[in-house]
């Protein structure tokens, strides 16, 4: 046997600078540096099991301070496009994948994932045994890590020095600096109407674009910074207040919790993810950190009132302690581990869910919750007759 003549030499993606990822508890993973190549990047290591939607995940502000490892093999296949951004820029600290696609293929693609990451200065690691990594995080919990082209020793030191998210206020780093207004764009087919003139104020703790889009099917939306006080909010005469998702430890956000406590009972409230935890805190509940959180698009959540199971998109490391909230009832539970996924106040027009009904990425099974928010606003008008909220009834 003789070797065949070799084909034309093309530059192959296999040739990237070698790099390592080291966790604070000392595990080492080999890979190749990609995206914005840096000697050392640090953050809290989490894994996400969604098989599509990497762009939405990477641009989700809730990942601020975290390094996202995707368990799905091929990442970057369909590239990126402006429409799928969940924020103007990624806030995550890094991206770890098993196999990064160099040239994307999809009619919607305008830029490859790697150029996208480079443009936004997001360091990445490819060629990693991400399954081993997920198994490690499953056992060790979400751990700080460091990765890059630096030596293993340097990375060890960086990982040891890196902080987790406990007690950290990461919201201030991602929230809007001033209020922005997003006009009503008509409801999505369910023709309830009455959106004209309805006003929703949305707290931005790291809000996702898709949430704002869905809210604008309910009314005109004013997105306000996390630091906005209750009085400032009420001055906008909202028919409802929305509490967005966001990064980090809810216990580290006394300000927002106090503001929400003031709003409870005076205006209908709907919270998602961090917003759910803040509402819980405002109502006297407590939160705790999960071992490695829920990050994926396949979690079964049961809606207790009907028994129906929703396949949900999830991204949280903290959760609300079951039964810790006075005068509230649990409305949704996670069938995998029993974690509280939603509750409503028995005293005030306020409810929230831990998971992501807006999906993006993920299944649309829970989008009905935005309709539920509309219904709540209709049932609890905040303004005298003649105003929009009342007209809508």
């Amino acid at each position, binding site marked *: *046997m*003789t070797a065949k003549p070799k084909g034309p030499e093309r530059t192959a993606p296999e040739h990237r600078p070698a790099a390592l990822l080291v966790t604070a508890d000392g595990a080492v993973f080999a890979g190749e540096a990609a995206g914005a190549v840096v000697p050392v990047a640090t953050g809290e290591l989490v894994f996400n*099991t969604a098989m599509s939607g990497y762009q939405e995940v990477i641009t989700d502000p809730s990942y601020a301070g975290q390094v996202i490892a995707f*368990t799905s*093999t091929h990442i970057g296949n369909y590239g990126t496009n402006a429409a799928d951004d969940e924020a103007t820029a990624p806030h995550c600290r890094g991206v770890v994948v098993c196999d990064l696609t160099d040239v994307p293929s999809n009619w919607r693609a305008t830029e490859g994932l790697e150029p996208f990451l480079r443009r936004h200065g997001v360091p990445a690691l490819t060629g990693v045994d*991400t399954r081993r990594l997920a198994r490690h995080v499953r056992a060790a919990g979400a751990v700080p890590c460091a990765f890059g082209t630096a030596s293993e020793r340097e990375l060890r030191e960086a990982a040891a020095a890196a902080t987790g998210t406990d007690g950290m206020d990461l919201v201030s780093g991602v929230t809007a600096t001033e209020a922005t207004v997003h006009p009503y764009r008509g409801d999505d087919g369910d023709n309830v109407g009455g959106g004209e003139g309805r006003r929703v104020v949305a707290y931005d703790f790291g809000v996702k674009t898709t949430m704002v889009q869905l809210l604008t099917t309910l009314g005109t939306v004013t997105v306000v910074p996390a630091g906005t006080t209750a009085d400032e909010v009420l001055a906008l005469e909202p028919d409802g207040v929305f509490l967005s998702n966001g990064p980090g430890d809810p216990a580290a956000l006394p300000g927002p919790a106090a503001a929400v406590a003031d709003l409870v009972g005076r205006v209908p409230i709907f919270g998602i993810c961090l917003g759910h935890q803040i509402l819980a805190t405002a109502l006297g509940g407590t939160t705790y950190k999960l071992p490695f959180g829920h990050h994926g698009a396949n979690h079964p959540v049961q809606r207790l009132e009907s028994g*129906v199971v929703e396949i949900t998109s999830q991204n949280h490391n903290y959760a609300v302690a079951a039964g810790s909230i006075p005068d509230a009832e649990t409305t949704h539970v996670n069938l995998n581990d029993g974690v509280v996924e939603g509750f409503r106040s028995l005293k005030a027009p306020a409810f929230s869910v831990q998971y992501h009904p807006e999906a993006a990425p993920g299944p649309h099974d829970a989008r009905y919750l935005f309709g539920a928010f509309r219904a709540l606003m209709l049932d609890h008008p905040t303004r005298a007759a003649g105003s929009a909220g009342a007209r809508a009834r």
Partner: protein
Amino acid sequence: MPRRDDLHTILVIGSGPIVIGQACEFDYSGTQACRVLAEEGYRVVLANSNPATIMTDPGMADRTYVEPLDPKVLTAIIEKERPDALLPTLGGQTALNLTMELAELGVLERYGVEVIGARPEAIATAEDRDQFKAAMEGIGLEVPRSGFAHSLEEATQIAEEIGYPIMVRPSFILGGKGTGIAEDAAHFGQLAAEGLAASPVSQILVEQSIAGWKEFELEVMRDAADNCVVVCSIENFDPMGVHTGDSITVAPAQTLTDVEYQAMRDDAFACLRKVGVETGGSNVQFAVDPATGRRVIIEMNPRVSRSSALASKATGFPIAKIAARLAVGYLLNEIPNDITQATPASFEPTIDYVVTKVPRWAFEKLPGAEVRLGTRMQSVGEVMAIGRTFCESLQKALRSLEQGRAGLNADPAEGALDEVPTPDLLERLAVPTPDRVFELEAALRRGVDVDEVVARTGIDPWFVRQLVRISDERARLAAAATLDGADFRRAKRLGFSDAQLAYLRATTPADVRADRLAHGVRATFKTVDTCAAEFAAFTPYHYATYEEEDEVRPSERARVIILGSGPNRIGQGIEFDYCCVHASMTLRDAGYETVMVNCNPETVSTDYDTSDRLYFEPLTDEDLANVLDAELAAGGEVVGVIVSLGGQTPLKLAGSLPSELVLGTSPGSIDLAEDRERWNALCAELSIPQPPGGTATTTPEALAVAGRVGYPVLLRPSYVLGGRAMEIVYDDDGVRRVMQSMTTGALAREGGVTATRPVLVDRFLEDATEVDVDAVRDGDGEILIAGVMEHVEEAGVHSGDSACALPPQTLADEVVEMLERHTRSLADSLGVRGLLNVQFAVKEGQVYVLEANPRASRTVPFVAKATGVPLAMVASRVMVGQTLADLRKEGLLAADAVGRVRVLDHVSVKEAVLPFDRFPGVDTLLGPEMRSTGEVMGVDITFGLAFAKSQMAAGTRLPDAGTVFLSLADRDKPAGLEVARAFSALGFSLAATLGTAGYLRAQGLTVGTLVAKVGEEGVASDAVELIAQGRVQLVVNTPRGLGPRADGQHIRAAAVAYKVPCLTTLAAARAAAAGMADARAHPLQVRALQDLHPLAKGAPG
């Protein structure tokens, strides 16, 4: 909602014989269903005509009917068993159609049988393309522009409106049968006519062709509370226009943004709800325009399918099992996920690897068939491979095919493409064929750019670029001075086998392996766990890859490794998987931990709970070595490896195993039986007569042997299964032609002719009766003759293609005794420990041995069903050291099973099922090259009745009145007379070709119709016309004289085309006449296996 307590007895319908488009995936789903329903405490009644299935093991159901899947028969079963419910969604299209018939006949209503899983209305909406289209448009889903036609005129009119290219598809069909794409009016007319004929309701869909769009499938489940989940998304590598069953497919989908994927998911659920599938699994197919993302829905199957078997194996989510639970009332969230144990089944599996399925075709066995893939499915089997990357899984899949390929080229076989000039290569790319993926890589290697390839094939650029990675890497590997650890790791992560590296580096696989291990690059085994490691997995379902962590758990227990049989192919199918599964079941009972290695996603053996450990891996030396290393490292004792139950596949691997690890008959003995010289010597020594013959490696040698033994002679390569490339030749030219073909082409690739693999040249025994004998011998030398099967067709028709009866019907006792005596002495002198199959030909009372196979044979399951002796289980126990005496004590064998197994009160007939209806242009004449895809069994109190049932089960319903058309070879005429008499005695009128008619008239028979052969002029009417006009109900056509046997092909072709039963041997005709006579004397009777063999120990339910 928990289990339904208002149901007690549930009837499950299987899918019948293995045919193209409906293979053993339905044994897998049916077996899971039976298990689940039994666990739930229901009384399960099963109907399936296929004896080579696990689901028809007596232990799998309370009542098992191996009877024809025919409304009449099913009615009799329902009448007898009075089921409360019928579960039709796990037996493929066959069970669905049968259920629809029973509903329409009012049978279900009459006996108050509730259809669970899918209501008849839902089935109708999904299966009738007309209703389906309307329903989908009703909920705002887009479908390709189309219209329905019941006549040629109607069809043409619609076609003109839509414009070409046009796709034609009959309603209520399977595997794309009768469908195709027409570029112009002429081709359209032909397709439309065919389609109208193929559709049981003679209705066709005339549809705008969207060939070239991306094709996707979603496997979805729904429960009674309307909870819906997607189990798996599958993307076709080959675009629309190539049937999914013939496409390379990949899971999960790779090229959809989440926005597109979620929209598709919403559509799939909307479709399920609209069609009204209340519970169970369904398969929804979509096409996506790569340029605009425009999405149309192609079809949905309201049942488990081939794809859901694939999805189950790909994700670890057992669709059929869960579908069965849903059908009896459970909700998804009430069913636990076996693998994680902690979480419920109401979730969507997520996977952290890539799965690739590659089909396997059998064109080489069907001369005359056009080698071109299209919208009708033609593959006979498939392999699945799991890798961390697409490249790895694709290359693993390609080497799993067992077609002499080590991966995506980079092997000796690639040479065939090197001669092809690039322009021709580009031409070929436009035509989908089994070789296209190899041609693709060859083109890319020559520097043809991606866009060019995409333009010609319609394959998504993402996939094409992955192939570029492989060919770039190949170039690097070939060029590198030496390979370091990084090189090996990169190569392995792209799926290169050691054999490919050896080829590129001009060295041997063994050296590559040693070098690679020296660099610390070894296989690691990961786990298929449904959740990408988010939760701990409890089922050891593994695949090999090259990563940093190995997940194989240690074990202290004694383990037996069972090697499976790889992809289904003609000659090696489900029978061998059946044997492997039985080995696993019985050895688990005996306290061993069983380890299964196989790569066929359709099978029961690759169900993660069939064995204690499952390695979903290619069956090659390298991959087996990896498994062995892992198992030896896992601790405990590896008792050995079973290589004799999976057909030729594991046998070919035996050589690479440490001989002390091979269980059962020694590889030496197996070789002895295959090695002509030594085999002849043995037969001579035992004075067992053989047909005179010899071996040859060159044409002159072959001619010499032929001269010595006299024509006709039979030529064939050694070491192949299913009579591959076996030919009967009548003169020197024939010999030259065959020798030529064996030293070139596909066959040469399979090993071809070498000094160690000579061509066998034997005197062909004409008009001899063929007999199969299956026996088992234990370590103490005790032998049990389990079954003696007399073939219906004469020797010369491959044993796998001929019908056979157990017990023998015409053989004299002393002949049977001689057959048994020969079998015993062969078993002893081969030192058999386990199974032995011997094939004999009996001519004028003289017994000749044709071959002996000291391994599981195709007939093992049939013998087990006919006699009640679980032959494969018995053999497996014997292989690990138990004796037949032990097994009698234990009760696995009946106490009286000594010496031979006697069957007195009933006759079982096995009939083969042939794929000719899918391959127009292929001669249906049976010969020594096996071409059947599956088998059925008929059981009754007389041979005639059993034969008639076997025909009915095989889909050729014998007529009870009308005209029989005879066209006989001269030498058949005397015997034909008797048959003709029998038919006219039964009240049939006769038609015959001139010669035959003359003879019959001379003997005083009335021949109503004279038929002309092609070319003959005169009063006589034309044979084909006669058949086309339905003026003939049965055709008996035996090939003429000693010349080339193709004569009369047009008659046989017409019979196939117009679905008129056609018998090509007098023996079969005789049997048919007997069957019809008996059928008139006895009313239809159905019998459960449990009644035939009251004491039989089946597989544990």
